[in-house]
């Protein structure tokens, strides 16, 4: 169950057939206090790189892109009710969606933890 990252600071973690997607701790710290999230309805099918959610802070808004293609099976109601959860637990309880991936091989194109850490150092 390794976590992989995109350059847009989404993380994805596959557990069995279902992958969990969220934004990285770095992303939440850059956004500041999250005030609103707009989540997709379950059933929505997206390609890798397509917009699946929007996250807003007081002074910024940012799209969340699907790290891999697939079908959304669940959205995290907890962050819709309490957006601050994204700040408190971006990479655990503050996840955005769960997805059934259409092609697990797409994961291989993403960064692992070490690569992402190195990437952050370049920013």
């Amino acid at each position, binding site marked *: 169950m390794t976590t992989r990252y995109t350059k847009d600071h989404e993380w994805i973690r596959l557990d069995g057939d279902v992958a969990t997607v969220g934004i990285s701790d770095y992303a939440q710290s850059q956004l500041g206090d999250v*005030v*609103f999230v*707009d989540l997709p309805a379950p059933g929505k099918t997206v390609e890798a790189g397509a917009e699946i959610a929007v996250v*807003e*802070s*007081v*002074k*910024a*808004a940012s*799209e969340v892109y699907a790290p891999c293609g697939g079908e959304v099976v669940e959205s995290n109601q907890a962050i819709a009710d309490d957006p601050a959860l994204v700040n408190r637990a971006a990479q655990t309880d503050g996840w955005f969606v769960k997805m059934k991936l259409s092609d697990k091989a797409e994961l291989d194109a993403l960064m692992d933890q070490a690569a992402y850490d190195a990437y952050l150092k370049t920013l």
Partner: protein
Amino acid sequence: MRYLGLTEADRREMLAVIGAPNIDALFRDVPAGALNPQLDLPPHQGELEVERAFAAMAKKNVSPMDVPFFLGAGAYRHHIPAAVDHLIQRSEFLTSYTPYQPEISQGTLQYLFEFQTQVSMITGMEVANASMYDGATAAAEAVLMAQRVTKKGKAVLSGGLHPHYRDTIATLMDQTDQPHVAAPTDLNGSEDLSALIDDQTACVVVQNPSVFGHLRDLSGLAKACQAKDALLVVAVAEVTSLGLVTPPGAMGADIVVAEGQGLGVPLSFGGPYVGLFATREKFVRQMPGRLCGETVDQDGRRGFVLTLSAREQHIRREKATSNICTNSGLCALAFTIHLSLLGEAGFTRLAEINHAKAVQLAEKVATLKGVEVIPDAFYNEFAVKLPKPAADVVEALVQKNILGGVPAARLFPGEPALHDVLLLAATETNSEGDMDALVAALKEVL
């Protein structure tokens, strides 16, 4: 030059500090040949000379203050209490910028919060924004918002909609080739729009009272919209009507837009005015324009800030809900002060007077031979059918020093059937003497 802060000595000294030999050295990036063009413009003038020039231009106009006056059609003459203009000219309101630094803008922010509350109350809606440019642009923004909310494209435009509103909406929608269906012009107030609403319809835009004055119960239309998941957008071109008439919110409107000029804002030949924009709370993140919200400061005291800014262009850029930045803040202030002065009792009374004056006027002109008052139910304005072209009648009335309404042809030039139609408005500013003068003059020119 009285508005400039620097003296010649200051300029020399500052250039020396900067290390520039002359002022044009600071413009060194301007392409050769483009700097300091010869301009054929007159030299500077004192206040007195400028005042004289404007007085001369003002004199070439006929002031509505000086003659019996019955124009409306989207802009209405009302008496503005003296306190309104005094207060909006206070330096701290007049010469401040958008309240981006809330600690030193609480005055602006609090009145915007009060404005939003007043607009919500009088329209019968849950939330309102901090203003748009005018009623027509607010209507166009409402259509775009309805498209975002419903994720559908088509707009159905009532045949009773003011042509300026209709054209402003159509012009904006044409940019992205969005479909809009304008119903036939509805002189008699009898249109049924439900047949035009289909599964692709994002919204229906209807004006109440209509441009011809018809007041209608829109609850049936609201149900027809609901059945097709379309939004009902109600435009109110004369805001004082809301003092007397059932508000659009109570008839099932999803978005209410209005021209707020009738409260606190002078006619000023068509602008600046103030657009009102109100809707349901659940659509708030799809709203255009600025919103002011309540919060607390570091010491726990109540205060106000601009909020939900992530919808707006300075943050969301190409994904913003609108491109609007500068809105109509000072006109919103005038509106808020005027409505605060009126209060519930005054606002209701003002609307009652407007309506009663219009009823009186309608009764008087209906006595003229060949003149037919078209709407049965109206507020302070109504269309009348004349026995000859209304534009000619209005010109003849000018010769008799009367500004006698708006010929429908001015707004609907392509519709010969409307050339005999005249729009007449009466407000609290019209005396019975004015009305009698109009009727007597009409008798002569018809």
